[in-house]
């Protein structure tokens, strides 16, 4: 028994395992880079890095063909901890090595935390408009809005993924059943009225597109549903995630399909957006958004530009893009409680490497 434990311990703390894992990671990164050409960065990452195994489908049977990023990460952490508790003990001459490896463990854990806790959102604000929410650009929700109260609306959100899975959902006395779902779609005017549909579907047609994997394009879903109230049909609807249009179910209930929102306890107003170009050329020198932030603590003005984000209440607003008419500014909004970890861990690694490098060069020249 102890023999087996010792063997296992020796295996997990061995430098051979380290080298093997580093090789595995090397090829994983290489394959992922090539895969990005076809799949786009987002899909390739999902397949190679945020996975336990890389699967290949042979006659629709998934077969694991390589270790995924999670597996390699976990094994590397185990390997590091095991080797530092057995063979490589803390000694003054190994302090650099310890710093590097401890920094690495922290870095791997940190990136795990980021993928768990970090949220990437987006918001587009038009000049002199104010918004108090940010959006998840890839997650869509069917939102039922109850307007019966005079002062506030009551929202009920259903992720479109849920509807896609179950095919139907209920809201109060309403029943929604899914006819078709397009992960990426556009709408176009029909030209003639289609009486099968009510409201938007009357004049507009939902057209499914192949899913896009390009980094500069976005999938906007569309659904075709039938809605009943108390088992009596009220009509067939189309909803499309790219339009703000709300459709009525009855006098006090409206529905829309839109990106999932995260409501903030402050609001952001875009005063002006400006794009500066180099003298008499079309080459952009800087993008700048003049913002006013309104919160319960009062109001302050700030400027967000490239390399100069706004950090407020756990959210960070980055200048990401703008509309061609240069009146709407688009921000990437990130909420990542573990953002400090990579800073600490990389400082440890760099410092450790510096110590280690000095030692080796000294030893080498002697």
């Amino acid at each position, binding site marked *: 028994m102890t023999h087996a434990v010792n063997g296992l311990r020796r295996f997990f703390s061995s*430098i*051979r395992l*380290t*080298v093997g894992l*580093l*090789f595995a*990671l*090397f090829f994983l*990164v*290489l394959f*992922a*880079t*090539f895969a*990005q*050409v076809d799949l*786009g*960065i987002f899909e*390739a*990452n999902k397949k190679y*890095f945020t996975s336990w195994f890389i699967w290949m489908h042979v006659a629709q049977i998934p077969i694991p063909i390589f270790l995924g990023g999670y597996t390699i990460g976990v094994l590397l952490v185990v390997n590091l901890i095991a080797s530092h508790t057995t063979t490589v003990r803390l000694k003054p001459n190994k302090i650099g090595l310890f710093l590097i490896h401890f920094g690495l463990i922290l870095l791997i854990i940190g*990136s795990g935390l*980021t993928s768990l806790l970090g949220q*990437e959102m987006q918001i587009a604000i038009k000049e002199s408009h104010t918004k108090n929410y940010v959006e998840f650009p890839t997650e869509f929700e069917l939102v039922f809005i109850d307007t019966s109260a005079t002062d506030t609306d009551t929202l009920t959100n259903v992720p479109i993924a849920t509807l896609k899975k179950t095919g139907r959902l209920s809201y109060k006395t309403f029943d929604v059943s899914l006819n078709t779902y397009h992960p990426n779609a556009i709408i176009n005017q029909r030209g003639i009225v289609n009486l099968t549909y009510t409201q938007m579907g009357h004049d507009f047609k939902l057209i499914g597109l192949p899913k896009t994997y390009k*980094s500069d394009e976005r999938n906007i879903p569309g659904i075709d549903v039938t809605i009943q109230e108390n088992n009596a049909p009220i009509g067939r609807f189309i909803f499309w995630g790219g339009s703000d249009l709300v459709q009525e179910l009855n006098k006090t209930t409206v529905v829309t399909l839109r990106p999932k929102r995260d409501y903030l306890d402050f609001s952001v107003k875009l005063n002006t957006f400006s794009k*500066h*170009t*180099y*003298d*008499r*050329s079309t*080459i*952009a*020198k*800087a*993008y700048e958004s003049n913002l006013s932030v309104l919160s319960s603590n009062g109001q302050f003005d700030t400027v967000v530009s*490239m*390399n*100069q*984000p706004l950090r407020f209440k756990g959210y*960070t607003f*980055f200048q*990401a893009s703008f509309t061609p008419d240069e009146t709407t500014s688009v921000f*990437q*909004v*990130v909420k*990542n409680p573990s*953002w400090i970890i*990579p*800073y600490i861990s*990389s400082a440890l*690694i*760099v410092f450790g*490497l*510096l110590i*280690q*490098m000095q030692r*080796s*060069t000294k030893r*080498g*020249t002697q």
Partner: protein
Amino acid sequence: MKQRIKHAIIAFILLITAIKTMHIPTPIDRNIGQIPVMHDGRVKPFDTVARHYLLQINGKLSVKNQSPSEWLMTLLTHPTASANDPIILVEHPRLFDAINPLYNKQKFRVSEAFLDAHIEKLSPFMTEALQYEKAERTPFLQATYLVFYRYQLIKRLRQSYFPSINHSQLDFWNTMLQITQSFDDDISTDSEAFQTFSSYYATLTTFNEQSDPLLLTTIHNTWLSLPELALSTSITAKEPLSIALLLSDAFQKNDHVKIRQYSQQLTAQTISQLSLLTRMQVQIEYWFNAVNPFIMSLFLYLIVIILCVFHSNSVVSFHTAIRFGWASALTVHGVGLLARSFILMRPPVINLYSSAIFISFVASVIGFIMHKRTNESVYAISTTVLSGLSLIVAYHLSLSGDTLEVMEAVLNSNFWLSTHVVAMTIGYAIIFMAGFFAIAYILMGTLTKRLSPSIDNTLCNVVYIFLMIALFFNVLGTVLGGIWADQSWGRFWGWDPKENGAILIVLWTAIILHMKWGKLISPQALMVMTVLSNIVTAWSWKGTNMLGIGLHSYGFTEQTFYWLILFFASQLIIAALGLIPRRYWSSNQAFNDPN
């Protein structure tokens, strides 16, 4: 005595090489080449703009009997001149082979007049080419696209100075002024004089709507083109206009005295409006173009390489000569880098081109110090070869256009450029040095009898130390890049291809080092792995840009791809050579031979 003659000869060769690689300006060139112009967001000497357009159209910097400045000035001021000169580069054998069988080759040049007659035949292909992104076009469609682009560029340049009448731009303006004088303020709009005037006026305004005019003068901190000066309501705008038109006239008449007079006047006029810094930048850029420092240092490195070869194959010592040649190459190289930084007010590395120049410089400086301390020729040969190759790569990258470009908003940060990019590039330089020492080790060991046990030992040590230092700089550069990304996009790491490339180098170096620490690798295998690191580094440095995705992919030409493959193949061959068992190595036999 002999020693002195040898040194004199070598100094003479170095001097001749230096002079030969310069673009020594002609008198005309010296006058018009220094006129400051606003182009692509930066004040440049006219000479730079001329080189830029000539490269775009001709693919190289030489035209028959003309300097780039003279060529561009001719194009700007004569509406039809040089229409028959074959200067438009065509890069596909199938484009015009039906018209002229002589054009059935990969690269040739045709004249503007030839394209006037035949380009219509290519229109359908151009329409097709425009439907695709650059990366998706076939070579034929891409060549078509480029021919159209170059042809239209010439046409546009001819429209970017001033309108002309009877081939004279001065006459156009004088006639227009005369007509204006000839009629009274209350002239009827039906009169012939008014009609003529309005047609002139219309021509001028059409010219003014040019998308990319030549911005020749600055009035009250605004750069203006000649039609803008003509239409301006400011009377101060008229003086530079008349100088520019007189210059055009002098150029047409090939009157050297007047060309000199007017271009100096025009330069003086503009310069008086510029800050001292900008003036110095324009001056330095003009001389930078003329001296051509990186090509000069490339040839000086070549001479050093040749001297190294002589040195190791003869009894005569060339140490002093090597050191002197190398020091001159380094000086020219360093001054060139400083000049670039001064012209742009940027750190030395801002794009792929300057990273090649910088890699070459860093390697050269380190190699020079090592050689000075040890007198070991192997350091001299491997580093100068690396520096030379890197400068050749830079030269090819420079053919794609202006290398002194202003920075796009995303990259517009001197702090991050000088920390992340410089650290990264130093890392590339050092790992390439380790790779080239490893190549030297394998080639010396297998093919020659020079790898003595002491050199063997030294090289193993040096490669190990360089791998350590490279690991440090690559990690530092990558981490700084992460922080930059986190500051700009809120994302420390995004698995962008360039980031993946950086992590590949770090991983590969870490693998080699761990294998050494774990005693899993022989010195010989370590060298083979280090040679392979050249492939990893070259891939990360250049190859990832070819994938054309992500935020980092800045430019690539297809030719680069073939050279990269060739480089990979050469490294694989050397690595394979290194895998030959030690007992078959020439050096091994030499040093183990009991006799």
